[in-house]
């Protein structure tokens, strides 16, 4: 049976997730400026920055997929991951999909006139995908919590 403390915890987790995701999405997109600096830097620092970005993107994707009380037991997870949350996540994925498609199409056109490296292309597409999905999911969750 679900206890009041489970409900309280689930509510807290849902609200925290709704607050954090749009911020994380914006921060992730804004943080990309660091990776596109023109100045030459030692190979070791460049490799570290690349690995850090990849880890950051993967952590955010894992959070998007599993930050629903997955490590708090089945009862709390069922409360956090209700039907509305699952539908909102699917809509978040849809936004991420379209953001990636738009970024890829735009880059393909840009690449016809100005060469883009493979790494830059992957970077921009994945950033658009992750950032858009997080912002959309977080915004929908906030709206759902506000509407009760």
């Amino acid at each position: 049976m679900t206890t009041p403390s489970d409900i309280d915890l689930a509510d807290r987790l849902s609200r925290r997730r709704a607050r954090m995701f749009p911020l994380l999405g914006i921060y992730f997109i804004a943080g990309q400026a660091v990776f596109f600096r023109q100045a030459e830097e030692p190979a070791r620092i460049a490799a570290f920055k690349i690995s850090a970005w990849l880890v950051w993107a993967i952590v955010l994707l894992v959070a998007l997929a599993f930050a629903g009380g997955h490590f708090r037991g089945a009862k709390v997870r069922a409360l956090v991951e209700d039907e509305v949350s699952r539908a909102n996540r699917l809509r978040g994925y849809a936004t991420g999909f379209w953001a990636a498609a738009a970024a890829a199409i735009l880059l393909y056109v840009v690449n016809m006139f100005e060469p883009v490296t493979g790494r830059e292309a992957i970077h921009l597409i994945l950033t658009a995908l992750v950032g858009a999905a997080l912002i959309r999911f977080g915004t929908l969750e906030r709206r759902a919590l506000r509407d009760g």
Partner: protein
Amino acid sequence: MSDLSDVEYADRLSRRRARMLPVLAIVFLAGQAIYFSGPEMPARTVDQIKVSAWLVWAVVLLVLLASGGGLFRSRKVRALMEDESTIANRHRAYSLGFWTAVGAAVGLYVVTMFESVSGREAIHIILTMAVAGALLMFGTLERRAHRERAEP
């Protein structure tokens, strides 16, 4: 109110869509080999057309996925084709497209650490995986929905 012909017509179109989308996805995937033989910055007109044609192809498939193929049909037929189950199936297809794009991007990123990948190749692979993954999933789910509806 929808008359019987609208219902029948929408059903026929919907079944055709469910049959066609996975085939289109496979043709799209299989057709990629010809695009990787050209130069990175196409100078010849024929290469420029080839590069642009792929983009047009991808955009057409994305429009097809988003519209459900009923773009030039009447509002009634479109509404019948776009029922709740189809909308849910499309969202599930987008989620698969999302994850295949992620998989392709992360995989390519690792590859770039050992081997150089051009911008065009990277965009090509990621978008192809996303579009084909979403189309395959949507078509498969729609086929399953039609089969389940037909069963007594």
